[in-house]
């Protein structure tokens, strides 16, 4: 009886992963089989998984892949870092000082809701095609989730806790340290999850526009050259990177703030 219960929970906990994994494997197998036996492979239209994985392996071996990842990673790191350093304080002050919030809210909301990728040509004109231009584009895209999530976080701070700290003679600094930061942090990390997705868009836009290296550049270049197996390979790499980032942050959220799951 107990064994059966154990089996049931095993199936329940892993069923999503098992069914999902089978579906993914089936997807690649069917793709491979269709193009091997049923439809003649036209290399200028489509590729098949065996060629794609071979291509990834070759690009890893020659080291191009690692170099491209590094080249794309640098502006992402700078832009994302700047967004953290500027976005969080702006959001916290907006939430903490009501009038600052009133003043900045409409402008920033309008910017957040608009397709900011459209500033890419301007950023390129003003800051050039190097690391700086890309980092600024990524910063522009990444900063808003941080601003608005830390704003929401500060607004959700319990006033009772603030009063308590004040009654015990806490100063402004103590308020931030004891009450505000622990409340706001989960919001900020949820914001980081949105921001990293937007940051990756920034990487791609920047590199599609003007670059000579990097993952986005390589995808566009292989596309222009009609080397579809390599292009699919780089697309897969990009997908894996994106999944690692978002699921990694999700995992951090779950382990650090288990009471906030599903926010």
């Amino acid at each position, binding site marked *: 009886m107990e064994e059966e219960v154990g089996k049931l929970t095993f199936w329940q906990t892993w069923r999503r992963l098992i069914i999902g994994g089978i579906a993914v494997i089936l997807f690649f197998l069917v793709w491979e089989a269709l193009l091997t036996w049923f439809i003649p492979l036209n290399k200028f239209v489509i590729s098949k998984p065996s060629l794609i994985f071979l291509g990834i392996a070759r690009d890893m071996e020659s080291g191009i892949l690692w170099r491209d990842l590094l080249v794309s990673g640098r502006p992402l790191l700078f832009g994302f870092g700047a967004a953290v350093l500027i976005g969080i304080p702006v959001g916290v002050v907006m939430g903490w000082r009501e009038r600052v919030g009133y003043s900045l809210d409409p402008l920033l909301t309008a910017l957040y809701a608009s397709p900011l990728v459209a500033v890419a040509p301007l950023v390129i004109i003003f800051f050039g095609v190097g690391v700086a231009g890309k980092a600024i584009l990524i910063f522009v895209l990444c900063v808003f989730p941080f601003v608005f999530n830390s704003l929401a976080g500060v607004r959700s701070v319990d006033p009772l806790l603030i009063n308590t700290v004040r009654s015990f003679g806490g100063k402004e600094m103590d308020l931030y340290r004891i009450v505000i930061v622990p409340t706001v942090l989960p919001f900020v990390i949820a914001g980081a999850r949105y921001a990293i997705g937007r940051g990756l868009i920034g990487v791609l836009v920047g590199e599609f*526009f003007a670059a000579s290296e990097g993952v986005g550049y390589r995808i566009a270049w292989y596309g222009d050259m009609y080397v579809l197996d390599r292009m699919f390979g780089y697309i897969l790499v990009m997908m894996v990177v994106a999944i690692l980032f978002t699921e990694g942050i999700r995992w951090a959220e779950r382990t650090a703030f288990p009471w906030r799951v599903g926010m």
Partner: protein
Amino acid sequence: MSDMDMPNTGLAPVEPVDDINTPGFWEKNESLFLGFGFIALVIIIWQLVPSVFTLSKGMKLFFATPTMIVGAFGDLIASGKLWPALQFSASAFGLGLGLSIIVALPLGVVMGRSQVLSDMFDPFITAINATPRLVFLPLILIWFGIGMWSVVVVVFIGALFPLLINTYEGVKNADKLLINVVKSYGANEWEINKLVVIPNSLPFIIAGLRLAIGRAVLGVVVAEFFGGSSNGVGVIMVRASGSFQVDVVFAGLILFMAMSLILTGIVRSIEARFSRWRPQQTKSF
């Protein structure tokens, strides 16, 4: 304020003293004044920069004041370049969004109702939703060529996932009790969906639509930027940036922003209307 509704005691009515806490005109509209005042301030400062600071020759070339941008916008309309481009962008937007609604709603309902199907699709949806869809653009260009259909497909992929995920969540969220009631009266799957599931998930779907519109406008922008077409507002912007006409680029940018804000604003008001009657009624059953 409660002492103003005191029962009539026959004494002369006491003149109500202006309460310190009663918000005046300024306090009531403070957020509006500050918000729009700040936007106005930014625009004024931006306008005044060239007359206060002397810009270097290179900067002057790239600097566009708000009046120049409005002028460029007027020129675009007057030269007749804007309307065909806007028509092209709008029809690509409409077609892509329409297609994504046609695909996402049925698929979302089916996934929400079938556990196996949702488990099967889950890894693909997680993967594609985490990845910037932009990564597929070069592939889409190879498959669909340069022209309207590439733009439509980019818009479609962008708008599909918020709609699909929200429909799925809405269907999942439907009241099990209501479903069982309808079932015990002999309803089949189609009737269950029609009577319970779809009305219940409507607010979710509309919230998804709001996100989808933002993504769809984004799709139009990027697809037109990167050679998805030879027409459209995005193309005007790229050409202008190639010849350093910063004012035209800004005009296009503001046009896209306005489109996105107006459309999401409309959906937001629809959303508010739909959720007005919703929560208590379903819970009080």
